[in-house]
């Protein structure tokens, strides 16, 4: 397998897209099996996770607690099936582990949990906390003189939490340059479309106003995502945020852009249809 000048494996766009498709099938299957969970926000986030884990994140499934690993903090912790499927693809957890999602004693808890799942760096489930945690891990890396990088994924609904903006302000004040954020801009929250619940207006302008480096892209376009990761690497004077425009439920027609599938499982017929579509 070929590697780049930093020793990273080189993956073709096609390979990454194929991995994302496998993860999508895994997400829908997990949620169907558990008859509960959050498929919509998992399907909107998964392309970003595949791009990040496969091409950027310095982590080792044989040593998940390596102190020098990069950190990935899934702040929108309900989208745990997305995390579990990519951790499975990377070799942190097994396919059998995926079957324990939401099951008593299972490795795959309902929301991502660092105490239960190898490769999970942050116990989420309550929105608004992950960026602060990522700032803490970024500050620690800087104090250590380490080049490790912290990546945080936020939901767009999560941006309604005030703590996000406390952390956004502090990250710029402290001039961290090893903190990169993905905003999964799928425009839907638990109850309904965000525009009906609480509008965000110009998300990019908000982050720019706080002093962040900001870029927007199509969160399902793998080549745009790879370019965005290159862009994150190039920002060396402040934290960077990628606002990734996504479709909630992406890849499954009846889930796409449908608030009903924020936190609902498909039935048997719907699962069959989803598997037909996710080829």
């Amino acid at each position: 397998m070929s590697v780049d000048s930093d020793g990273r494996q080189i993956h073709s766009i096609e390979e990454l897209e194929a991995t994302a498709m496998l993860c999508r099938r895994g997400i829908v299957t997990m949620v169907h099996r558990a008859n509960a969970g959050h498929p919509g926000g998992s399907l909107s986030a998964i392309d970003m996770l595949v791009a990040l884990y496969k091409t950027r994140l310095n982590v080792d499934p044989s040593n998940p607690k390596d102190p020098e690993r990069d950190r990935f903090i899934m702040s929108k912790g309900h989208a745990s099936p997305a995390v579990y499927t990519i951790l499975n693809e990377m070799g942190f957890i097994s396919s059998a582990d995926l079957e324990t999602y939401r099951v008593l004693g299972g490795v795959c808890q309902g929301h991502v949990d660092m105490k239960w799942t190898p490769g999970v760096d942050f116990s989420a489930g309550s929105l608004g906390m992950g960026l602060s945690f990522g700032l803490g891990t970024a500050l620690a890396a800087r104090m250590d003189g380490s080049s490790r990088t912290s990546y945080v994924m936020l939901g767009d609904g999560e941006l309604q939490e005030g703590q996000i903006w406390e952390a956004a302000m502090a990250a710029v004040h402290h001039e961290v340059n090893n903190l990169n954020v993905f905003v999964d801009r799928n425009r839907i929250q638990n109850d309904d479309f965000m525009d009906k619940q609480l509008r965000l207006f110009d998300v990019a302008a908000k982050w720019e106003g706080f002093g962040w480096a900001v870029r927007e892209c199509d969160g399902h376009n793998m080549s745009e995502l790879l370019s965005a990761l290159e862009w994150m690497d190039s920002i060396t004077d402040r934290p960077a945020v990628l606002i990734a425009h996504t479709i909630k439920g992406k890849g499954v027609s009846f889930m796409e852009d449908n608030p009903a599938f924020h936190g609902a499982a498909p039935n048997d017929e719907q699962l069959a249809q989803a598997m037909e579509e996710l080829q």
Partner: protein
Amino acid sequence: MTMGASRDGYGAALLKLASDPTVVVVEADLGKSTKSQNFRKVYPERTISLGISEQNMMLVSAGLATSGYKPFASTFAIFTERGFEQVRNGIARPNIPVHICGSHGGIHTGTDGSSAQSIEDLAIYRTLPNMLVIHPSDDISTEMLTIQLADMNSPSYTRTARNKTPRIYDADSASRLEIGKGVTLREGNDVAIIACGVMVSKSLDAAAELAKEGVEATVIDMHTIKPLDGELISNLASRCGAFVTVEDHSIIGGLGGAVAEHLSSNCPAPLERIGVKDHFGQSGGGDELLEKFGMGINHIIEASKVAIQRK
């Protein structure tokens, strides 16, 4: 009588802990008040200022702790509560050793009034699995106990007080302090007075007065609210058979609540609880407020007599 404020002990402890390069201080403003500024002045590169953002402070501390640092995060006791759910979900639940200090706890805080007087912090933090909860009585013991926290592998909440109160310990007696072990400051067989924080010296004064009337009281400094020293309480149930708890905190859920839980489950005995009786505070001098709310020395004496009568 030498006086000291427990918040000064916290500031002194941070300086002593600084020889450990992994100790970091995290502030949400108010470092002048909590005394974390003592550390900041000498070690600015290991002091992280987050401005007035307590929720952020809790999770930044958690991130630091999972990266090999030992964060000491402080603000007023009342403002730690703004980040309670962050402490619950982001620190206690994953059992991350973040050490939180809430200063200016209790009614004794005084003239700032009810918004600044946390009377529920010990109760709420005590309900969290994995949390250690301590409330030392003077500056010397606060310094010693805070230093011990640095070696703990679980999170903690320490309440300190704003105002100076009589010193209970000296360097020698403080050297025997141990988290989780109550300290017997005075021995007597008639009643056990279990106190914490600024109320420990009041309890000693009350016991001295009781002795003049022929009533011999044991006085305990229960600096650790969780884990509670249940063995000591059980022994006192056999020896004294009557209890008074004394705290500058609501009588619901704090030291009084913890002792009541232990007694009712293990060794039922009469218990009178001195504390804030389910109401908020107001502005006034610290001692004035304690008197007004039935938490003065005479109230402890009265409660002791009632507890003895109930045997």
